[in-house]
Every structure is written in structure tokens, then in C-alpha cells.
């Protein structure tokens, strides 16, 4: 090879990398099965079917994390909380923004290839903002649920709609805010609307055609097992919404769905019984929808303690026995370890102050201790944790959660009348502050001045040992946090909070290693990926999607 030719080859290589060609290799279901092993990608909501939000990437370490620098910012074009979690496949990032837009972004530069805009029907009703938490991918298609209860497939190269299936009636409050889950050749979603007296369901659709293949109600009808846990006709408006992406165990062929509150939210007298399968985890066969087992965290719930969290699949050595576990930090303030093969309760312990129950019995059922009228209940209405993505590191063996400490609400119940498409609440919960008239913690942070202070509750990242249920360490924040969590194979934990600080912590000790003051509240979880050998970390703060990498 002549020297000139070698130079030409080097030059050619340079040109190709400068072009940064995004080869859109097929995303097969086999690739999705091994999504967490493709460390350069982040192909599902939680970075892999196990729901661990754990990355094998090792370029960013505790020693060099202080050298992270800003690479790009993508501003949101619409206002309101940005709860979406991006996916990244072979250098392409796909992110949703309000109300139901999808953006295809060059993950290296933050520049946008295309924007898909879906016009939401004015019939759409959503309790808590025009939220969407992201897309799923298979083959050449992206899948997104909509606020008006549709499921869409979008061509990942052209950004054009491939099919559009009506899944639930928006006039009755059905909506889809979760990122769908793709399993094999099916795309699975659940319906939101737990504040509108819906009857929740989970359904599977053909990824090619959008044809519905099965549907399972989270609230069983007459003749179905579990219907006896609903007095009278209360099952008809029983709630049980689903709005966070489930985890999936391919070996057991089970998907694990967290379900939301029963309807009406705060008046259990209108729905006597345990109200199965609300506030539960349902283990469903993704091929048929058949339920293998269920576990209910909060029977006959009067507090709106949705069990809409990501159940984290972890293989642990529980009391000396290798155990296929599912780890669950619940909105009701308890941390649970269940056997994910059969739903058996293995362990439960509160991770924040709890006074609605004195504890859990041998089967994991709470022993209720309702507080007198007007008295505070811990945890408050937003819960000890909520939909904020947890993380699990197989290296440390610890589960990482975002929690609200010292946070309570005063609950009251009222009679709720069901009017189709209207709020069906039956009371409410007012954040407790200890000082009458003082502002309480809000559902989201809308102001840069924290006028509620830690007197109304404070945020914390907690590392919980699933073998004991005990906290290994706690990283306290002054304001509460809705941030998701991300761990890496270098024992870094990335997290944030409402104050807009983005942190890298030592996953073993909780020590703060690095922080950036991004300003806007951080909701949902950071992700990490790599392009051309460089590791990136992306996080949403306020109305900006911000991406960091090490200084060159």
C-alpha cells in the first residue's frame, strides 16, 4: 500500500465519521430481548426488559465524571412538564413532546431529522397534564399512545404514520400516556383515566397492522375471577389505570403491569371489597393476556396509592436461595420483594414514614390504621414514591429509588357521582404542612422560589438492599424529587430532582461526585448511550433535553 493510498483511506474514514451516517439497522425482537447488552443503545423505556435502568457503559467513571461537559440542548417547543424518556437506537434518538409529537434526533448533535405531529381530539381528557412518556420500537416502526386513546405506528425513517388504532374512548376519559412495550410481534399498552371512572385495561396489538389481538381488564367483569371484590356495580367505574411501561421476563414469558387507583379515588365506601386488580401487579402472558398471578399492594385504597411503578426484575440470593425476584418500591410507602415466578410475598418494609398501615402481614397484606378525620396520613397523596423510574445495579445489588420523606396529606372522602367523562374522585388529599395556610408540595414544580420548604416534605434518593429491605444510604434533597434513576457498570448513579440539579452519585455510598445546576425540574429518568465510542448521558430538565459527555 502506498503512503498516498493510506492517506486517502484515512481521509475517507474521516469523511465518513464526519458525516455521521446513521445506518438504520433493523430492530428485531431478538435485539430487544438483549437490549440491555447493547450498551451503546437505549432501546426501551427502562433500557431493557428487566426494568433496571442499568447500563454496561464504562467510559464515564467516578474518577472522570467531573469532566462531563454540555454537548447539546434540545428545547421543547411546548410548555408543561416534560415527562418523556428518550430511546436511542444506533445513534438515533426518538423522543416525544406534548401533546403527542415525536422527534427523530441525531443523538450526537441534538439536531432534528423530522418531527411528527399528531392532532389530539378535543375530546381528550387527562387528569394531570398532556403527558406522554415515550415511544417503543420494532423493525422500522415506532409506537406511541395518544392522549385521545389511540395507538399509532410511525415509520422511523420518514416520520409518517403507518397505522392508527382507536384503543379507548377519550370522551369517557380513556387516554394513553405510557411508552408502549413491544414483545415479539406485539405492541402492548394500558389505558390511563383513573380519575374519570374508567374500567382499566391492558391490550396487545399486531405491530404490522395495529389489529387488536387481546384485551384484559384490570377490573374484572361479572363471571370473571375477582369481580366479587367489587360491591354492586362499582366494577363498572373501577379505575385501575395503567400508565407506566411494564417489565418483562422472556424466560418466564411474563409481563409485569403496575395498576392504578380504584375509582372513585378517595371514597372506598362506594366500592366495598378489595377492588382487584387495582393497586396491584398483574403478571400477564404477552402472547394471550392470560394472568399467571397477581399481588395487590393496597386493597380498597382510600389514598390514591397507584401501584404504577416499574417493577424491577432482579435475580438475587434471597436467604441463601437463588430467587427470580421482582422489586417494587410502592407509592404506599412500602418496599416489596416478590417471587416473580408466582407472586409470592418475600419481604416488605416501609422506606418512608407510614401511618396508614401498622405493617404488612405474612402474606404482604397491609394492616390498615386509618387516621382520624382531619389528621395527616403518611405518605401523602403523591406517595412515598410514584412513577419515577427506579434503578437496580447488579454490581451493587441495590435498588435505587426517588422518595418523598416527611410528606403527608389530610384526606377526605365525599360522595362521587359518576358522570361519563367527568372527574370521579370522591374527595381528595390536601398536602399537610404543619402551618395552616402554608403552601404544600405541588404535583410539579412551577416556580423557582421554594415557598413550601422542607417543612412540607423533602426529596431523597435511597439505596435499598433487597435482601433486607433496609436502606443502605440516603441522599437527601431540600425539595422533593420526581427524577428517575440510572446506574452504570462503573457504579455511578445519575439522578436529579425538582431543584434542577443533575447529580452523579457514588452508587455504593451515595456520595455526591458531580452536579450540574440545570435549573428546570428533572422528571423521568436520565439515559446513557454511546456513539462512535463516546459515552453520552441525556436528561430532561424543565423544557430542555440536555446531553453531556466527557470533555475531549
Amino acid at each position, binding site marked *: 500500500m502506498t503512503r498516498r493510498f493510506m492517506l486517502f483511506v484515512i481521509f475517507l474514514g474521516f469523511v465518513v465519521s464526519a458525516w455521521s451516517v446513521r445506518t438504520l439497522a433493523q430492530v428485531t425482537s431478538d435485539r430487544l430481548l438483549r437490549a440491555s447488552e447493547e450498551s451503546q443503545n437505549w432501546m426501551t423505556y427502562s433500557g431493557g426488559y428487566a426494568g433496571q435502568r442499568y447500563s454496561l457503559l464504562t467510559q464515564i467513571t467516578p474518577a472522570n465524571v467531573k469532566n462531563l461537559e454540555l454537548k447539546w440542548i434540545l428545547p421543547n417547543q411546548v410548555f408543561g412538564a416534560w415527562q418523556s424518556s428518550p430511546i436511542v437506537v444506533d445513534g438515533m434518538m426518538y423522543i416525544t413532546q406534548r401533546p403527542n409529537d415525536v422527534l427523530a434526533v441525531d443523538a450526537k448533535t441534538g439536531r432534528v431529522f423530522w418531527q411528527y405531529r399528531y392532532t389530539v381530539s378535543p375530546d381528550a381528557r387527562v387528569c394531570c397534564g398532556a403527558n406522554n412518556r415515550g415511544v417503543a420500537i420494532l423493525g422500522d416502526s415506532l409506537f406511541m399512545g395518544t392522549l385521545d386513546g389511540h395507538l399509532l405506528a410511525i415509520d422511523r425513517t420518514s416520520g409518517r404514520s403507518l397505522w392508527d388504532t382507536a384503543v379507548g374512548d377519550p370522551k369517557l376519559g380513556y387516554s394513553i400516556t405510557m411508552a408502549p412495550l413491544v414483545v415479539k410481534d406485539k405492541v402492548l399498552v394500558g389505558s390511563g383515566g383513573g380519575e374519570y371512572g374508567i374500567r382499566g385495561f391492558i391490550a396487545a396489538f399486531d405491530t404490522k397492522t395495529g389489529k387488536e389481538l387481546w384485551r384484559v381488564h384490570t377490573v374484572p367483569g361479572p363471571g370473571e375471577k375477582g369481580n366479587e371484590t367489587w360491591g354492586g356495580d362499582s366494577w363498572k367505574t373501577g379505575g385501575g389505570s395503567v400508565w407506566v411501561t411494564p417489565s418483562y421476563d422472556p424466560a418466564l414469558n411474563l409481563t409485569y403491569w403496575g395498576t392504578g387507583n380504584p375509582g372513585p379515588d378517595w371514597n372506598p365506601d362506594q366500592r366495598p371489597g378489595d377492588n382487584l386488580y387495582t393497586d396491584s401487579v398483574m403478571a400477564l402472558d404477552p402472547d394471550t393476556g392470560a394472568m399467571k398471578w397477581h399481588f395487590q399492594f393496597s386493597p380498597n385504597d382510600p389514598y390514591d396509592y397507584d401501584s404504577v411503578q416499574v417493577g424491577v426484575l432482579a435475580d438475587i440470593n434471597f436467604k441463601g436461595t437463588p430467587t427470580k425476584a421482582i422489586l417494587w418500591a410502592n407509592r404506599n410507602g412500602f418496599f416489596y420483594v416478590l417471587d416473580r415466578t408466582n407472586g409470592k410475598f418475600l419481604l416488605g418494609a416501609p422506606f418512608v414514614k407510614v401511618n396508614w398501615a401498622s405493617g404488612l402481614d405474612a402474606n404482604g397484606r397491609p394492616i390498615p390504621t386509618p387516621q382520624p378525620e382531619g389528621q395527616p396520613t403518611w405518605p401523602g397523596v403523591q406517595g412515598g414514591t410514584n412513577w419515577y423510574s427506579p434503578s437496580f445495579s447488579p454490581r451493587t445489588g441495590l435498588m435505587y429509588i426517588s422518595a418523598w420523606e416527611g410528606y403527608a396529606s389530610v384526606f377526605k372522602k365525599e360522595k362521587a357521582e359518576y358522570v361519563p367523562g*367527568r372527574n370521579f374522585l370522591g374527595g381528595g388529599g*390536601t398536602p399537610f404542612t404543619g402551618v395552616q395556610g402554608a*403552601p*404544600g408540595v405541588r404535583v410539579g414544580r412551577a416556580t423557582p422560589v421554594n415557598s413550601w420548604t*422542607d417543612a412540607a416534605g423533602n426529596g431523597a434518593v435511597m439505596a435499598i438492599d433487597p435482601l433486607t429491605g433496609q436502606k443502605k444510604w440516603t441522599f437527601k*434533597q*431540600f425539595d422533593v424529587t420526581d427524577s428517575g434513576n440510572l446506574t452504570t457498570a462503573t457504579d455511578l448513579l445519575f439522578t436529579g430532582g425538582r431543584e434542577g440539579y443533575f447529580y452523579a452519585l457514588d452508587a455504593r455510598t451515595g456520595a455526591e461526585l458531580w452536579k450540574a445546576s440545570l435549573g428546570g425540574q428533572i422528571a423521568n429518568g436520565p439515559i446513557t448511550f454511546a456513539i462512535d465510542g463516546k459515552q453520552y448521558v441525556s436528561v430532561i430538565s424543565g423544557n430542555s433535553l440536555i446531553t453531556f459527555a466527557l470533555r475531549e
Partner: protein
Amino acid sequence: MPFRAPLLAFVGLVLLAPPAGAQLLTIDHPGQYTQEDIGRGSLFYNGNCFACHGRDGDQISGIDLRRGQFRRSQSDEDLAQTITRGTPGGMPAFKLEPAELTAIVAYIRAGFDTSASVKVGDAAKGRAVFQGKGECMMCHRVAGRGPRSAPDLSDIGIARAPAVLERSVREPSAGLLPINRPVRIVMRDGKTIRGRRLNEDTHTVQIIDEKERLVSVVKKDIRSMDVAKESAMPAYAGKLTDGEIADVIAYLLTLRRQ
């Protein structure tokens, strides 16, 4: 509560006017809405407004209905108009009966406090007490007059419900909002800073110090920080008569920065 009767009659008359009337409601300040309207307003609110504005009325950015922070409205009439006409590209127009509208406005103006039953006296007399016997202006500032060490009260009439105001006058420590608590910070270099807390997060705290300077402190530079739960303000229960307190509340309710 005799002071309410004439106003009520007035409201009734105004409500008979055609809906085009921008004159719909011209009540001066809260505390003048009937308990009945406030109670009914909570029901209408839950049915119509809750979904977007939330239980505490603060779910839309820049708006805090309970504390009187609006984007467009100042007067009750503005509020009513926003409700009935909606906003461009935002809130839909609500078709409500005049009585429903009155009730919702009452509920909003009462700070969502359906239990409010506070005695509200004469604002002019209250002003005299505020500026004289009460010595309130030794610490508080109103419309550009007075020191800044205690919270500025220029818009307290829209920021606080009457019951909350009454408690703050009678027992200031019970009513002291956590954010306003006095802080005493000793820096690592030994310097001491005293003041009132304005904002705080995990890593920093912002205060107004005794010399009315805005100070931002990074917590890692702090040796100790004490946040007192006791207010520096004297309790006026016993210092002022019940009638004087009612007058002061009436005056405070007129303080609405326009």
C-alpha cells in the same frame, strides 16, 4: 355578620343585569363573600375547574388561584369574564349560571377556605391601628413605605385568606410560613448573617439580611445554620382588642397591589 347584607343585596342586583355586563361583580375584597357561596363554589370548582387547575388551584404554570395569582385577572369581574369567555388557545369558555359564577369567584377569593368565618371590621380604622397603635410599620412595608425586614404586605389582601390573616395577627408564630422563618447563619470564616429566608435548595439559601441586603449563601461555606420557628413579630391577641384586630384584617384585605 351585618356588614355582608348590603353587599349581598348589591351582588344580587348586579347579577340580574344581562351577562354582557362587564359590571358583573364588583366586590372589593374577600371576607365579603357568603359562607354559602364559598361552600357552593367548592362544589362547582370541583366539577368544572379541578381537572386542569388542580385541588389547590396551582396546577397551571403562573397561576395560583388560592393565593390570588392570575395571568389576566385582577378584579372579580375579570375573573368572571375569564371563566365565561375562556382564554385564546387555553382555557375553554364555561357556560355557568350567574349564581354558579358568583360561587366560584367567592370560593377562589376565599382562598378555597370553606370554613372561613372571620370577623372583618372597618378598613379605615384598621389602617389607623396599623400605622399607629399596632406599630406594624416598624417592620412591615406597604406600597413602598416602611422597612423590608418583615414581609412586604402590599398585596397581602390577595395573597392570604381572612382566617390566615387573623391567625397571623393573633399568634404570629403559629402563622409564620416556613419559608419566612428567621435564619442565623455562621459562615466558616466566623461571619454571622441574620435575616429572613427567601428561598432555599439542597446547596444554597437566599435571604434578606438585617440591613435589607439580598444574600445568597452556598451551604458548603456554612459552619452552622439555625432556622427559628418563632416569629420576631409580637402576638397581638391581648395587645389589640378584638374589634381592632377585625379592623386591621379589613385593612389588610384592601391591600392589593394594582
